[in-house]
């Protein structure tokens, strides 16, 4: 009994310690997000609101600007060493562009880099995008706080 309690206490302490270490490393390294606008669409209200909300939540945000090809987005993600790429797209070209962004990220070894999509995506395409490796799709009406929460709980802590 006593020894098992000691062990469990020790385990708790260890657990707390490792949580603290995790938290410390999280503090040292803020979550880095690339907000990207692929395709020809110029509607950047959503992208800019999200970028600002993520910054206000303490993340580091890089915005690509408009009309980036999947290749440009993947290259920026690698160069900026981001934890997640948030793709804003409203034009209907998501089925062509988003899977390619995921594929290019994986090809350059960014296996843990989350790809989030925000914009107008019909129900039927949600599954397709997830199968292609998109971590989550946020439809119009999403609270920026939900996106912050999603990133905080899904970005993998770095070694």
């Amino acid at each position, binding site marked *: 009994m006593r020894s098992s309690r000691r062990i469990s206490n020790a385990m708790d302490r260890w657990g707390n310690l490792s949580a603290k270490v995790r938290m410390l490393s999280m503090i040292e390294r803020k979550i880095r997000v690339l907000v990207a606008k692929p*395709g020809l669409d*110029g509607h950047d*209200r959503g992208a800019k609101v999200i970028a600002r*909300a993520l910054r206000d939540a303490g993340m580091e945000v890089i915005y690509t600007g408009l009309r980036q090809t999947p290749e440009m987005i993947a290259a920026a993600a690698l160069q900026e060493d981001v934890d997640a790429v948030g793709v804003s797209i409203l034009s209907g070209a998501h089925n062509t562009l988003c899977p390619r962004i995921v594929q290019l990220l994986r090809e350059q070894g960014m296996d843990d880099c989350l790809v989030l999509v925000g914009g107008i995506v019909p129900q039927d395409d949600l599954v397709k995008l997830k199968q292609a490796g998109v971590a989550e799709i946020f439809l119009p009406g999403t609270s920026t706080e939900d996106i912050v929460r999603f990133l905080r709980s899904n970005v993998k802590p770095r070694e």
Partner: protein
Amino acid sequence: MPDTKESSSPVEAEIERWEQETLAPALEKHPETKKSFQTVSLEEVKRLYTPADIENMDFIRDTSFPGEFPYTRGIHPTGYRGKLWTMRQFAGFSTPEETNARFKYLLEQGQTGLSVAYDLPTLMGYDADSLLSEGEVGKCGVAVSSLADMEVLFDGIPLEQVTVSQTINAPASVLLAMYLVVAEKQGAKWEKISGTLQNDILKEYIAQKEWIYPIRPAMKLVVDTFEFCTDHIPRYNPVSVSGYHIREAGATAVQELAFTLRDGIEYVAWGVKAGLDIDRFVPRISFFFNAHNDFFEEIAKFRAARRIWAREMKERFGSEYERTLQMRFHTQTAGVSLTVQQPLNNIVRVAIQALAGVLGGTQSLHTDAYDEALALPTDRAALIALRTQQIIAEETGVTNTVDPLGGSYYLEALTDKMEKESRDYFQKIDAMGGMVAAIEKGFPQREIQDSAYQYQKAVERGEQVIVGVNKYAMTNEPTEVPTLVIDESVRTHQVERLEQTRRRRDSGAVANALEKLKLAAQKGENTMPATIESVRAYATLGEICSALRDVYGVYEEPAF
């Protein structure tokens, strides 16, 4: 005489009395539900408006009669009693064949004008076979890469009789040229054609961001179309100065009003500088506004817009000609207000927004389809949108009298306030050296971004309610709506016609025409004649825009 204390008017004394005797006990029993009541633009609204709020207003000077300066109550003395607004539903998707069929369907259903939506490659001046067009052909509108597509788009639609509005900006002069050549082939006389080219490049840099060339050469292209239309298509509106996109990007109602009207002033100034006669070209400048959720704020915005325009044309430019002073505008309900959640609720939103447009005295109206937060509208959704207008026009009785809300204390006070706040913006923009300079500094862009963020935060705090989204949300929504799906076969179809067009045309004539166009652009001459010649020779949109890109360069947005 009752004791008026320090109050200046009998009304104010009465207000004080009412507050003490009637209001205070009521508030004690039933406090109000919120501390602050705000419009959708986050503007504070008072509990009550009375004659005291419009004390400084002069009926003849500020409101007057419809059809008379400053046109607050409308430009037509009979309002809608003489002529209803034009029901002009924006449509365009997939191939020119498909959109042509939708146009004919809408005309059969009683629609009175057409409005073309082009796809993103067309808006950006790329052909369907450009690498950059992949995934985008026919998605947000109809794909048009050359005259061959335009011929199909208007096949069987008599352009001398039907007025057509074209939503096209950066490459507007090219699409205008295609339209004119198609009309000519139908045997229509240019002098008889009427319609509208959006051609509002300033709001692209400010809000919608579908640009090609740097701002100043792009403005030169707009002035070219002013000059050409004034001389050759006198009934055509070469620009529709648009607040719609500014609002959709997150602007408040006042920002929409101020930036749009200041854009209008900028076009007039550039036209005058180029030597155009103000009273020949300004009467053909039209406007385009958003009709958002806040009912009274929107109606006040439309009334203020007419008054500001009339005063600016008179005071700033010295015009006395009534058609220069009269603002005509198109209205579209707010796409941004539509929700994916419980989409049928959008039918109600659209009806109320459309009613605001009508009570504000719009000349033409587009009502959004309820499925537009999901995809482009299906036939069924587009039909309900049109029927909404017809119900407002023919069942509600709001068209029976002119400016029915004129004289409302709240509305008149709001109209006045919006005019004042717009003028504050004008002063700031004038001090920067005009709208082009203000855009180069990123001023309107930053103001809009800020408003968009403040609004988002207000929604997330629950201060601004969106039914079905942050209140009355449902986890299992009962309605599933069918949506329009456009697949990649559209691109194949369009690329085939493009290849056929390239094979059949006289390539020498194309090269000559494009060379002439470049020369005209280099010399600062009017580019319209050479653009028309290029279009006639079946040069593609992408080729024509490339020729101009070679001369003008391309716009790169600075980071704001």
